[in-house]
């Protein structure tokens, strides 16, 4: 589904590439964990496959089409949904409106369906009162779950998440990981999660480790 070929990236001030000549394939219906040391370039990699930045070298293609050809705005709108490390919610809205906004912008098939959005937020452990408060009145973990709900509410086949469980307790982490697995297995989405947590990584179908500027793919079974 998502094909990364000969990918290379470096920041202007860096002497060496963060990574180069990366070739990876991500399939629909599968979940992937990207692990690696802090500062190794995981978030940078995510920004590339999420269409927030353009590669220095190589291409990223979705179902055979270069995402730059699709157009990055178009790609972000229809094909990918992102959960940020820093949540990045719209602070002047309630959780419910945040989810509805995402559904509206992406022309989701559930566009305008309040109940759908509420169910999703409910599954992620938000109460009805919390759903309609300002998001700024929620805790970090609650905001993170809103961000996850927002990514799940849209039709995009590709879901990328940067440390989605970083602020969650054990029970919530389990629930979130569970939901991501369901997204992959029941809705045939391709889920890519960046994480530091071994448990989260282990729960994913595949692990990709970024170390020494190289990505190494491991099968869940071989961990």
């Amino acid at each position, binding site marked *: 589904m998502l094909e990364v070929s000969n990918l290379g990236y470096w920041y202007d001030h860096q002497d060496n590439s963060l990574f180069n000549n990366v070739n990876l394939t991500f399939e629909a219906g599968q979940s992937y964990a990207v692990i690696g040391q802090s500062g190794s370039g995981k978030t940078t990699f995510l920004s590339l496959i999420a269409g927030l930045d353009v590669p220095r070298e190589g291409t990223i293609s979705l179902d055979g089409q270069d995402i730059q050809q699709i157009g990055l705005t178009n790609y972000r709108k229809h094909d990918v949904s992102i959960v940020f490390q820093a949540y990045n919610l719209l602070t002047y809205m309630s959780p419910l409106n945040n989810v509805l906004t995402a559904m509206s*912008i992406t022309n989701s098939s559930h566009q305008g369906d309040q109940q759908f959005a509420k169910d999703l937020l409910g599954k992620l452990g938000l109460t009805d009162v919390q759903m309609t408060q300002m998001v700024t009145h929620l805790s970090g973990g609650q905001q993170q779950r809103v961000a996850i709900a927002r990514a799940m509410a849209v039709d995009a086949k590709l879901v990328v998440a940067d440390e989605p469980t970083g602020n969650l307790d054990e029970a919530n982490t389990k629930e979130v990981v569970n939901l991501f697995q369901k997204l992959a297995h029941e809705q045939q989405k391709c889920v890519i999660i960046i994480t530091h947590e071994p448990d989260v990584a282990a729960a994913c179908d595949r692990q990709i480790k970024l170390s020494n500027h190289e990505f190494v793919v491991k099968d869940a079974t071989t961990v």
Partner: protein
Amino acid sequence: MNFFKRAWLSLIAKKGRSVLMLIVTSAIMLFVFAGLLINTAANNATEQAKESVGATLTLSANREAAFKKMQQSQSSSSSSRPKLTTSPVKLSDAKKIAKLANVSSYNATTSTSVNTDGFDTVSTTSSSSPMGGMKSSSSTGDITINGVTNTAQSSSFSDKTNKLTAGRQLTSADSGTNNVMIESELAKADSLKVGDTIKVKSTSGSKTYQLKIVGIYKASSSATTQMGPGASDPANTIYTSNTFANTVKGSKYANTADSVTFTISNPSAVNQVKKAGKSVINTSKYSLSADDSSYQTVKASMKNVKSFANKIVWLVSIAGTIILALIVMLQIRERRHEIGVLLSMGESRFKIISQLFVELAMVMVVSLVIAGIGGQFIGNKLGQQLVSQQTTTATSSGTSQAGPGGTTGRPSGAPTGNMQGGMRQNMSNQSSKAKQAKLKVTLSPVQLVKLGAMGFVIILLSVVIAAGGILRLRPKQILLE
């Protein structure tokens, strides 16, 4: 949750920011509106003045030509003292014009003065001022005589400066009689009433005339204050038939008038009649002109008011656009995170700019209401201020003109341009008209729509100017660094 709803939510959530924006846009709209209102009011005032220009033509001595002649004779013969000789209008000439198509009637006016014989004049502070001393030294009498064919048609009565309070007006039927209309103050001072007779002496003292009072009129007090120094109290002006005024002036003035005013039945035919009239008279001796001096005065002063109002509109609009653009730019800075989030979800930059525009537009609608209420008030205050400045200059320049030529019968050196005989009447007429040219600043839906359109353009421009900031934003830089 489209960008309209987002705009609304954002306005509600960030109340402080919204109120600040409201204050700024209201201030801008208020001044733009005041400017627009003053401009329209000035236009209306000019239109009204144009409409109120009486459909009249005045035939009088051509002072300009006479003045030129005087200058010529001055240069050719330096020995003799130059004399401004103007010939009175011959009634036979006036009748030629009166016969033209569209001329419905005419009113001959002759002014002169006499002294009282056995009754007192009304004295006011202005007549007892040092300038008042001029009267006794010249050939001017205590009583000013306005000899007219028909008082109702004379300008002071037609513009309601003077109003009949007892008896009747003088008409052409009074021609050849010694019937007179006096002012109510004079009547009161001498306990005179309709039916009484008064005696007047010619200024040389050689002749005495007995006049019969047939009407008493009241001169509006505003005319008194508008009169320049040297002019006698309006209460000492009496109206007689034109023939009587001529008799007082002397036998060579028989069948003449200082000026003759023609009433044109169809106002749009004034220029046509003027042309036709000029062809039947000797234009080097006479001038035939439409009396639109009050219109010209109003037009000139309103032109200034309008240009000032236009400047307000332009300056405030440009300054407002710049200010709003800066505010939007600052907002984009402050809201780059939010914008980044929207961009990361694939929202188009155009829609993000549209959201900012809609937010401003919503604020603008409220500020339109505020401006609608406040603009009328400010417009009125500002408008009155502007007009009072303009009218003061207009009337003061008018009064100074009245000085030398003001009292008929006294030879004066300076030509007074378009000022003709019956000067005093014209003067009070003009100043009262100028006073009428008040700005009526009123609110109309059309003007609100106009204001709305201007406000729309202002916020559109400011958002477009500021939008460059959004186009440059990269979501990754905003969200991941």
